[in-house]
């Protein structure tokens, strides 16, 4: 069966330093890949390359068997939530959510009220994001997981700044995404519980 996401011989250099060499992996539907490694090992860079933002120096990436390079289909199939939340501090959480729904290729039917309540921002959704706490901002950013439909989730440090309840929320969202035959790649050194055999890990320190 053709893997959903497959990488062959990926090599990355940033600032003269090799981040990974000849990295290969294949993800089937319902699987998640956790990229581990100490700070500065290149987790974010690799994730950005998978998102099509970062420069890939060598190697090939395929989505459903087709090359991802300059592929609109690939871009529309992925949802990337970076280390920063991508929230405009002058807009409210609701406005940010609605904006991301309008520019996404496939938005879901979940309204801003519903999504933001589910991530625990019921009382804070109409405050400018600049006035939210770090944890609240992270939740607001993660609300997009509900607002946009995507087969591939690329999440950079999704658990950072979150309390136990927040982490559980992310785990449950991820679990449901995988059960619905999506794939995910996460960059985090924190352990992800409850995903069982669906979770594969990759250590960047050994891949460099």
């Amino acid at each position, binding site marked *: 069966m053709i893997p959903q996401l497959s990488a062959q011989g990926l090599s990355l250099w940033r600032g003269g330093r090799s981040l990974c060499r000849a990295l290969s992996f294949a993800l089937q539907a319902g699987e998640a890949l956790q990229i581990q490694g100490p700070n500065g090992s290149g987790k974010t860079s690799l994730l950005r390359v998978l998102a099509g*933002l970062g420069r890939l120096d060598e190697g090939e990436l395929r989505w459903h068997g087709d090359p991802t390079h300059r592929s609109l289909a690939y871009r529309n199939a992925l949802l990337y939530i970076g280390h920063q939340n991508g929230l405009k501090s002058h807009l409210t959480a609701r406005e940010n959510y609605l904006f991301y729904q309008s520019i996404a290729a496939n938005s879901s039917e979940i309204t801003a009220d519903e999504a933001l309540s589910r991530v625990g921002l019921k009382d804070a959704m109409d405050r400018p994001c600049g006035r939210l706490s770090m944890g609240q901002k992270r939740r607001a950013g993660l609300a997009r997981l509900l607002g946009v439909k995507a087969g591939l989730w690329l999440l950079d440090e999704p658990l950072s700044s979150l309390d136990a309840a927040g982490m559980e929320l992310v785990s449950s969202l991820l679990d449901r995404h995988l059960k619905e035959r999506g794939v995910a790649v996460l960059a985090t050194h924190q352990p992800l519980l409850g995903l069982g055999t669906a979770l594969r890990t990759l250590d960047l320190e050994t891949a460099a």
Partner: protein
Amino acid sequence: MNALQALISRDLTIAYRRWGELMTPIMFFILVTALFPLGLSPRSELLREIAPGVVWTAALLAGLLGQESLFLSDYEDGSLEQLALARLPLEWQALARTFTHWLGAGLPLVVLSPLLGMLLQYPAAAMPELAFGLLLGTLALSLLGAIGAALTVSLKQSGMLLLVLVLPLAVPVLIFGAQSAAQAARGEDPSGALYLLAAMLVLALVLAPFAIAGALRISLES
């Protein structure tokens, strides 16, 4: 609401909520223009002669001063990455966002120009031509400045470098713009220079979005 409308609406909303920050280039424009009579001489004949050049140079510098903010905050909070992944092509985004940015940074300069012309003894009869020329010129400069902003957005201390990169490219706009204002002041027909300004604007409209989008992708690369 489609993606382009959402983007324009977002930019306008943010600009409206940050209106205080928009004041700086406008203040700069007024101050720089006022410096010339103070630094040179308040004699009317001299001021009248240098007025076209001064107003245009001040508009150029004020416009470029404000240009840095076009993409910087989006780069810093991670929105630029998301916009690069949106379903709207980056080239269209470049055009739309440069225009909304101009509404806050360039249009006020056009509106203020008669006032500043008056400070420099610029003839009132030629004010419409002055403003129209600046309309064309500030639009073209916004596009050129956006290229510079896109190239330098990921760099530290990008402001100075932006100026250094864009000023040589902006020289034709300055030359034809100031000429049109000077010709209008002398009672001559400025349409030749204005047509050339319009031609440069059209060239910028067609080519700049590609340069801006390409530069943004490169800035997001590492």
